[in-house]
């Protein structure tokens, strides 16, 4: 068998995970439906006044996004761990920290990107003004890669734990807090017509940092569980 290049392996892994996700559509769709339902609960619980909804919309959408990203995490490595695929990934000549970035990318494509696409609907539901909507879409676009990368750390660390989903939330929510702070601040500033470049730059910096460094922690976590 001929040797595959790093890029070929990465693309193969990406396609494989996307194909698996396409065959089990409900797994990928459930977190999104959950997010839509959580967002629906707030106007019903607080009252449908557009003023108050527009005021708290960025917080609601981002908190719902954080919770929804926690839902899908358990499946990120669990099946591959149980059927031995992760062991095969460990044995590849390419570093594990490199191959897991493909898994993180798939997770983002299935949970982060749909959020960005859904954001106009969410903004409409919560009567967020138009200048707030594009800021919301930008914060989701810049912030969700960090959610996927940090989430992968939590998923990798709790691979061996039975029913680890509550533990994953306990570990990850403190790490998610900075994202929430800067993202909601950006959307609020945008709704009031103020500059948002500072917050967006920080969000982008957090994403770059986590996407580059988190795979190292993910790889360490997977090796710890596989061996």
């Amino acid at each position, binding site marked *: 068998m001929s040797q595959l290049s790093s890029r070929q392996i990465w693309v193969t892994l990406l396609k494989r995970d996307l194909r698996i996700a396409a065959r089990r559509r409900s797994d990928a769709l459930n977190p999104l439906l959950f997010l839509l339902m959580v967002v629906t609960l707030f106007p019903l619980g607080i009252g449908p006044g557009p003023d108050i909804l527009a005021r708290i919309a960025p917080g609601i959408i981002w908190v719902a996004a954080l919770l929804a990203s926690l839902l899908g995490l358990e499946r990120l490595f669990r099946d591959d761990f149980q059927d031995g695929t992760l062991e095969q990934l460990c044995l590849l000549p390419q570093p594990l920290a490199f191959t897991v970035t493909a898994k993180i990318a798939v997770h983002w494509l299935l949970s982060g990107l749909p959020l960005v696409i859904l954001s106009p609907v969410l903004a409409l539901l919560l009567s967020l003004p138009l200048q707030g909507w594009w800021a919301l879409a930008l914060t989701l676009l810049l912030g969700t890669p960090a959610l996927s990368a940090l989430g992968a750390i939590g998923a990798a660390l709790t691979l061996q734990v039975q029913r680890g989903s509550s533990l994953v939330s306990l*570990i990850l929510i403190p790490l998610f*807090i900075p994202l929430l702070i800067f993202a909601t601040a950006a959307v609020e500033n945008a709704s009031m017509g103020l500059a948002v470049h500072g917050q967006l730059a920080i969000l982008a910096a957090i994403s770059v940092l986590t996407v580059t460094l988190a795979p190292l922690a993910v790889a360490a976590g997977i090796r710890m569980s596989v061996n």
Partner: protein
Amino acid sequence: MWRWLHPYAKPEATYHLLQKLLPWFVALTLVTLVTGVIWGLAFAPGDYQQGDSYRIIFLHVPSAIFSMGAYMGMAIMGAVALIWQIKTAEWSIPAIAPVGAALTVVALLTGAIWGKPMWGTWWVWDARLTSELILLFLYVGVMALYFAFDDARTGAKAAAILSLVGVINLPIIHFSVEWWNTLHQGATITKFEQPSIATSMLIPLLICLAGFAFLTVSLVMMRLKNEILRHELHRPWAQQRLEQD
């Protein structure tokens, strides 16, 4: 240095070292903490604006500093455990985490008690306060992860990785008062310039800092001794040790 450190990879040797050092640390803790707290609470001059209520800094500042210091120590131990696979380093994670969490709680509580008369509120969502609260959550997460596994060594490694990831929060806590315009005041002693605090208050504060440092180390040493004994119960030396006591 390696030849000097090497024996302590053996839990028994570490235990005996801790056994020898612990009385000294306990004595130092008692001396410095009692002197510092009594001096600070009873003899240091009152503040011209805040009167006597500023005196809580003699507990608040040291506990806040060592809540971060303990986390740093735990993360270093986590790195040692991951790199050199030393068992005593793994056991020091559960030894340090509850002590650090307790210090964090003390810092948050004393801050709230001081904040009520001074700021007029128990709690504000200020950058320094929020990041200190996140530190508490991180401690809780590390402890929960450590005890979640059937295999203790896997749990220790997972907790070590998580504690290393959480180190990112420490500079955020320290610089939060500079990066954001916060209600919490800026640094007064942990900076390179002349401390912006009167010498008559600075000296008892420094003694209190030393006292909390020794207190943290002593508590961690006691807990680490127990952890070593608990894991080494099946070995003859540990059984002998228990029969002697």
